[in-house]
Protein backbone atom coordinates (compact mmCIF):
# COMPACT_ATOMS: atom_id res chain seq x y z
CA UNK A 1 0.00 0.00 0.00
CA UNK A 2 1.34 3.38 -0.95
CA UNK A 3 2.23 5.80 1.82
CA UNK A 4 -0.09 8.28 0.20
CA UNK A 5 -3.04 5.94 0.59
CA UNK A 6 -2.17 5.16 4.21
CA UNK A 7 -2.19 8.84 5.10
CA UNK A 8 -5.46 9.38 3.22
CA UNK A 9 -7.06 6.53 5.18
CA UNK A 10 -5.72 7.92 8.45
CA UNK A 11 -6.95 11.43 7.69
CA UNK A 12 -10.44 10.33 6.66
CA UNK A 13 -10.83 7.85 9.53
CA UNK A 14 -9.80 10.48 12.07
CA UNK A 15 -12.20 12.98 10.58
CA UNK A 16 -15.02 10.41 10.63
CA UNK A 17 -14.25 9.56 14.25
CA UNK A 18 -14.41 13.20 15.28
CA UNK A 19 -17.73 13.64 13.49
CA UNK A 20 -19.01 10.43 15.14
CA UNK A 21 -18.10 11.89 18.49
CA UNK A 22 -19.67 15.26 17.76
CA UNK A 23 -22.86 13.53 16.73
CA UNK A 24 -22.88 11.24 19.79
CA UNK A 25 -22.90 14.34 21.97
CA UNK A 26 -26.29 15.51 20.71
CA UNK A 27 -28.46 12.41 21.21
CA UNK A 28 -31.44 14.14 22.83
CA UNK A 29 -31.77 16.61 20.00
CA UNK A 30 -34.41 14.54 18.24
CA UNK A 31 -37.32 12.71 19.84
CA UNK A 32 -36.96 9.48 17.90
CA UNK A 33 -33.90 7.34 18.69
CA UNK A 34 -31.69 6.85 15.66
CA UNK A 35 -32.79 10.06 14.01
CA UNK A 36 -29.66 11.98 13.11
CA UNK A 37 -27.92 13.87 10.37
CA UNK A 38 -25.19 11.32 9.73
CA UNK A 39 -22.27 13.72 9.55
CA UNK A 40 -19.80 10.84 9.21
CA UNK A 41 -21.36 10.01 5.90
CA UNK A 42 -19.69 13.19 4.56
CA UNK A 43 -16.37 11.42 4.97
CA UNK A 44 -17.64 8.18 3.44
CA UNK A 45 -18.92 10.15 0.44
CA UNK A 46 -15.56 11.86 -0.04
CA UNK A 47 -13.80 8.49 0.16
CA UNK A 48 -16.32 6.99 -2.27
CA UNK A 49 -16.00 9.75 -4.86
CA UNK A 50 -12.32 10.58 -4.48
CA UNK A 51 -10.79 7.18 -3.77
CA UNK A 52 -13.06 4.23 -4.55
CA UNK A 53 -15.62 1.67 -3.43
CA UNK A 54 -13.26 -0.47 -1.41
CA UNK A 55 -11.67 2.54 0.27
CA UNK A 56 -15.04 3.94 1.34
CA UNK A 57 -16.05 0.62 2.92
CA UNK A 58 -12.66 0.28 4.61
CA UNK A 59 -12.73 3.77 6.13
CA UNK A 60 -16.31 3.24 7.31
CA UNK A 61 -15.54 -0.16 8.89
CA UNK A 62 -12.51 1.17 10.75
CA UNK A 63 -14.55 4.16 11.90
CA UNK A 64 -17.43 1.95 13.14
CA UNK A 65 -15.17 -0.40 15.09
CA UNK A 66 -13.14 2.41 16.66
CA UNK A 67 -16.14 4.53 17.63
CA UNK A 68 -17.84 1.48 19.20
CA UNK A 69 -14.68 0.87 21.22
CA UNK A 70 -14.33 4.52 22.22
CA UNK A 71 -17.89 5.77 22.71
CA UNK A 72 -20.18 2.75 22.47
CA UNK A 73 -20.85 -0.86 23.37
CA UNK A 74 -21.78 -4.14 21.73
CA UNK A 75 -25.29 -3.00 20.95
CA UNK A 76 -24.23 0.24 19.34
CA UNK A 77 -21.68 -1.73 17.30
CA UNK A 78 -24.46 -3.99 15.97
CA UNK A 79 -26.60 -0.98 15.06
CA UNK A 80 -23.74 0.90 13.41
CA UNK A 81 -22.54 -2.16 11.49
CA UNK A 82 -25.95 -3.03 10.10
CA UNK A 83 -26.61 0.59 9.13
CA UNK A 84 -23.11 1.28 7.84
CA UNK A 85 -22.76 -1.87 5.75
CA UNK A 86 -26.23 -1.65 4.21
CA UNK A 87 -25.81 2.02 3.30
CA UNK A 88 -22.25 1.44 2.08
CA UNK A 89 -23.22 -1.29 -0.36
CA UNK A 90 -26.37 0.56 -1.45
CA UNK A 91 -24.38 3.69 -2.29
CA UNK A 92 -21.73 1.74 -4.17
CA UNK A 93 -24.40 -0.05 -6.18
CA UNK A 94 -26.16 3.20 -7.05
CA UNK A 95 -22.95 5.02 -7.90
CA UNK A 96 -21.94 2.20 -10.24
CA UNK A 97 -25.10 2.62 -12.31
CA UNK A 98 -23.82 6.15 -13.09
CA UNK A 99 -27.44 7.25 -13.40
CA UNK A 100 -27.59 9.26 -10.18
CA UNK A 101 -25.81 12.35 -8.91
CA UNK A 102 -24.02 12.40 -5.58
CA UNK A 103 -27.26 13.67 -4.01
CA UNK A 104 -29.29 10.66 -5.15
CA UNK A 105 -26.58 8.31 -3.95
CA UNK A 106 -26.55 10.06 -0.58
CA UNK A 107 -30.34 9.89 -0.20
CA UNK A 108 -30.26 6.14 -0.82
CA UNK A 109 -27.40 5.92 1.66
CA UNK A 110 -29.19 7.79 4.44
CA UNK A 111 -32.35 5.79 3.95
CA UNK A 112 -30.63 2.40 3.81
CA UNK A 113 -28.64 3.30 6.90
CA UNK A 114 -31.84 3.83 8.88
CA UNK A 115 -33.41 0.73 7.35
CA UNK A 116 -30.43 -1.33 8.50
CA UNK A 117 -30.78 0.05 12.00
CA UNK A 118 -34.51 -0.66 12.16
CA UNK A 119 -33.88 -4.24 11.01
CA UNK A 120 -31.17 -4.58 13.66
CA UNK A 121 -33.46 -3.25 16.39
CA UNK A 122 -36.23 -5.64 15.33
CA UNK A 123 -33.82 -8.54 15.77
CA UNK A 124 -32.25 -7.23 19.00
CA UNK A 125 -35.51 -6.18 20.68
CA UNK A 126 -37.41 -9.12 19.18
CA UNK A 127 -40.50 -7.09 18.37
CA UNK A 128 -42.40 -5.57 15.50
CA UNK A 129 -43.39 -2.59 17.63
CA UNK A 130 -40.29 -0.76 16.42
CA UNK A 131 -42.33 -0.24 13.28
CA UNK A 132 -43.95 2.72 15.05
CA UNK A 133 -40.67 4.57 14.52
CA UNK A 134 -40.43 3.36 10.99
CA UNK A 135 -42.12 6.20 9.13
CA UNK A 136 -40.21 8.85 11.12
CA UNK A 137 -36.86 7.18 10.48
CA UNK A 138 -37.66 6.62 6.81
CA UNK A 139 -38.51 10.29 6.33
CA UNK A 140 -35.52 11.49 8.33
CA UNK A 141 -33.22 9.17 6.38
CA UNK A 142 -34.32 10.76 3.12
CA UNK A 143 -34.01 14.30 4.53
CA UNK A 144 -30.59 13.68 6.09
CA UNK A 145 -29.38 11.98 2.92
CA UNK A 146 -30.46 15.00 0.90
CA UNK A 147 -28.61 17.43 3.18
CA UNK A 148 -25.45 15.31 3.31
CA UNK A 149 -25.62 14.78 -0.45
CA UNK A 150 -25.67 18.52 -1.19
CA UNK A 151 -22.87 19.15 1.33
CA UNK A 152 -20.64 16.33 0.15
CA UNK A 153 -21.19 17.35 -3.47
CA UNK A 154 -19.72 20.75 -2.64
CA UNK A 155 -16.87 19.23 -0.64
CA UNK A 156 -15.90 16.78 -3.37
CA UNK A 157 -16.00 19.60 -5.92
CA UNK A 158 -14.02 22.12 -3.88
CA UNK A 159 -11.51 19.89 -2.08
CA UNK A 160 -8.16 20.29 -3.88
CA UNK A 161 -7.04 17.18 -5.73
CA UNK A 162 -3.82 17.27 -3.70
CA UNK A 163 -5.65 16.63 -0.41
CA UNK A 164 -7.46 13.33 -1.04
CA UNK A 165 -6.19 12.08 -4.36
CA UNK A 166 -7.13 8.42 -4.20
CA UNK A 167 -3.54 7.22 -4.42
CA UNK A 168 -2.90 9.07 -7.67
CA UNK A 169 0.12 11.35 -7.55
Amino acid sequence: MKTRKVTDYALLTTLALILSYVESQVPAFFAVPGMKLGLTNLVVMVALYRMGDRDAVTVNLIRICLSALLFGNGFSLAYSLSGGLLSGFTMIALKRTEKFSIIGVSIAGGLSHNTGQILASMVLLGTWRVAAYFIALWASGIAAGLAIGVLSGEIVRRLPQSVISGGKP
Partner: protein
Amino acid sequence: MNKRLRSDLLLLGGLAAVGLALFALLSLGRDDGVQVLVRVDGVVTQRFSLSEPRSYTIQTRDEGVNELRIDDGAVWLESANCPDCLCVKQGKIRYAGESIICLPHGVVVELSGQDELALDAVTQ
Protein backbone atom coordinates in the same frame (compact mmCIF):
# COMPACT_ATOMS: atom_id res chain seq x y z
CA MET B 1 -26.55 16.55 -15.27
CA ASN B 2 -30.23 17.22 -16.02
CA LYS B 3 -30.73 13.54 -16.68
CA ARG B 4 -29.17 12.75 -13.34
CA LEU B 5 -31.36 15.30 -11.59
CA ARG B 6 -34.36 13.56 -13.10
CA SER B 7 -33.22 10.15 -11.85
CA ASP B 8 -32.56 11.69 -8.43
CA LEU B 9 -36.10 13.03 -8.27
CA LEU B 10 -37.49 9.70 -9.48
CA LEU B 11 -35.49 7.97 -6.76
CA LEU B 12 -36.78 10.40 -4.14
CA GLY B 13 -40.41 9.92 -5.18
CA GLY B 14 -40.01 6.16 -5.46
CA LEU B 15 -38.47 5.86 -2.02
CA ALA B 16 -41.18 8.02 -0.48
CA ALA B 17 -43.84 5.83 -2.09
CA VAL B 18 -42.17 2.60 -0.98
CA GLY B 19 -41.90 4.04 2.54
CA LEU B 20 -45.61 4.72 2.70
CA ALA B 21 -46.43 1.27 1.32
CA LEU B 22 -44.15 -0.48 3.82
CA PHE B 23 -45.62 1.58 6.62
CA ALA B 24 -49.11 0.48 5.68
CA LEU B 25 -47.96 -3.13 5.50
CA LEU B 26 -46.28 -2.97 8.90
CA SER B 27 -49.33 -1.43 10.55
CA LEU B 28 -51.18 -4.61 9.61
CA GLY B 29 -48.70 -6.64 11.61
CA ARG B 30 -49.38 -4.87 14.88
CA ASP B 31 -49.71 -6.85 18.09
CA ASP B 32 -52.95 -7.77 19.81
CA GLY B 33 -53.49 -6.14 23.18
CA VAL B 34 -53.01 -8.30 26.28
CA GLN B 35 -53.77 -6.12 29.26
CA VAL B 36 -56.38 -3.40 29.79
CA LEU B 37 -55.25 -0.47 31.92
CA VAL B 38 -57.77 1.93 33.39
CA ARG B 39 -56.45 5.33 34.42
CA VAL B 40 -58.49 7.94 36.22
CA ASP B 41 -56.80 11.33 36.38
CA GLY B 42 -53.53 9.67 35.41
CA VAL B 43 -53.59 7.07 38.19
CA VAL B 44 -53.90 3.40 37.25
CA THR B 45 -56.99 2.17 39.09
CA GLN B 46 -57.60 -1.20 37.42
CA ARG B 47 -55.84 -3.80 35.29
CA PHE B 48 -57.82 -6.43 33.43
CA SER B 49 -56.90 -9.23 31.09
CA LEU B 50 -58.24 -8.64 27.61
CA SER B 51 -59.01 -12.35 27.27
CA GLU B 52 -61.60 -12.45 30.09
CA PRO B 53 -65.00 -11.00 29.24
CA ARG B 54 -66.33 -8.66 31.91
CA SER B 55 -68.23 -5.49 32.67
CA TYR B 56 -66.86 -2.86 35.01
CA THR B 57 -68.12 0.50 36.16
CA ILE B 58 -65.44 3.16 36.25
CA GLN B 59 -66.23 5.66 39.01
CA THR B 60 -64.71 9.07 38.41
CA ARG B 61 -64.77 12.48 40.04
CA ASP B 62 -68.07 14.39 40.25
CA GLU B 63 -70.09 11.15 40.22
CA GLY B 64 -69.00 10.38 36.70
CA VAL B 65 -69.59 6.87 35.45
CA ASN B 66 -68.16 5.05 32.44
CA GLU B 67 -69.32 1.50 31.76
CA LEU B 68 -66.42 -0.60 30.48
CA ARG B 69 -66.95 -3.83 28.57
CA ILE B 70 -64.39 -6.44 27.65
CA ASP B 71 -65.45 -9.14 25.24
CA ASP B 72 -64.16 -11.04 22.24
CA GLY B 73 -60.60 -9.67 22.57
CA ALA B 74 -61.72 -6.06 22.46
CA VAL B 75 -62.48 -3.38 25.01
CA TRP B 76 -64.90 -0.49 24.74
CA LEU B 77 -66.96 1.94 26.78
CA GLU B 78 -70.60 1.01 26.43
CA SER B 79 -72.15 4.02 28.04
CA ALA B 80 -71.18 7.02 30.11
CA ASN B 81 -72.77 10.04 31.71
CA CYS B 82 -70.24 12.51 30.32
CA PRO B 83 -71.61 15.42 28.27
CA ASP B 84 -70.55 14.45 24.76
CA CYS B 85 -69.93 10.69 25.10
CA LEU B 86 -66.98 10.85 22.69
CA CYS B 87 -65.45 7.95 24.62
CA VAL B 88 -68.39 5.75 23.66
CA LYS B 89 -68.10 6.90 20.03
CA GLN B 90 -64.43 5.91 19.94
CA GLY B 91 -65.67 2.34 19.76
CA LYS B 92 -63.75 -0.89 20.28
CA ILE B 93 -59.98 -1.16 20.51
CA ARG B 94 -58.03 -4.41 20.30
CA TYR B 95 -54.38 -3.64 19.46
CA ALA B 96 -51.51 -2.88 21.81
CA GLY B 97 -50.84 0.84 22.10
CA GLU B 98 -54.41 1.91 21.35
CA SER B 99 -56.41 3.87 23.88
CA ILE B 100 -59.83 5.32 24.59
CA ILE B 101 -59.95 8.71 26.24
CA CYS B 102 -62.79 10.41 28.09
CA LEU B 103 -61.60 13.95 28.74
CA PRO B 104 -64.50 15.21 30.92
CA HIS B 105 -64.01 12.35 33.42
CA GLY B 106 -60.23 12.13 33.08
CA VAL B 107 -60.50 8.48 32.09
CA VAL B 108 -57.98 6.71 29.87
CA VAL B 109 -58.39 3.07 28.88
CA GLU B 110 -55.13 1.75 27.45
CA LEU B 111 -54.19 -1.52 25.84
CA SER B 112 -50.70 -2.85 26.40
CA GLY B 113 -49.16 -5.79 24.60
CA GLN B 114 -46.90 -8.66 25.53
CA ASP B 115 -43.78 -6.48 25.26
CA GLU B 116 -44.86 -3.90 27.82
CA LEU B 117 -45.82 -6.66 30.25
CA ALA B 118 -42.35 -8.18 29.93
CA LEU B 119 -40.85 -4.73 30.51
CA ASP B 120 -43.07 -4.22 33.56
CA ALA B 121 -41.87 -7.51 35.01
CA VAL B 122 -38.26 -6.38 34.57
CA THR B 123 -38.71 -2.91 36.04
CA GLN B 124 -40.92 -3.83 38.99
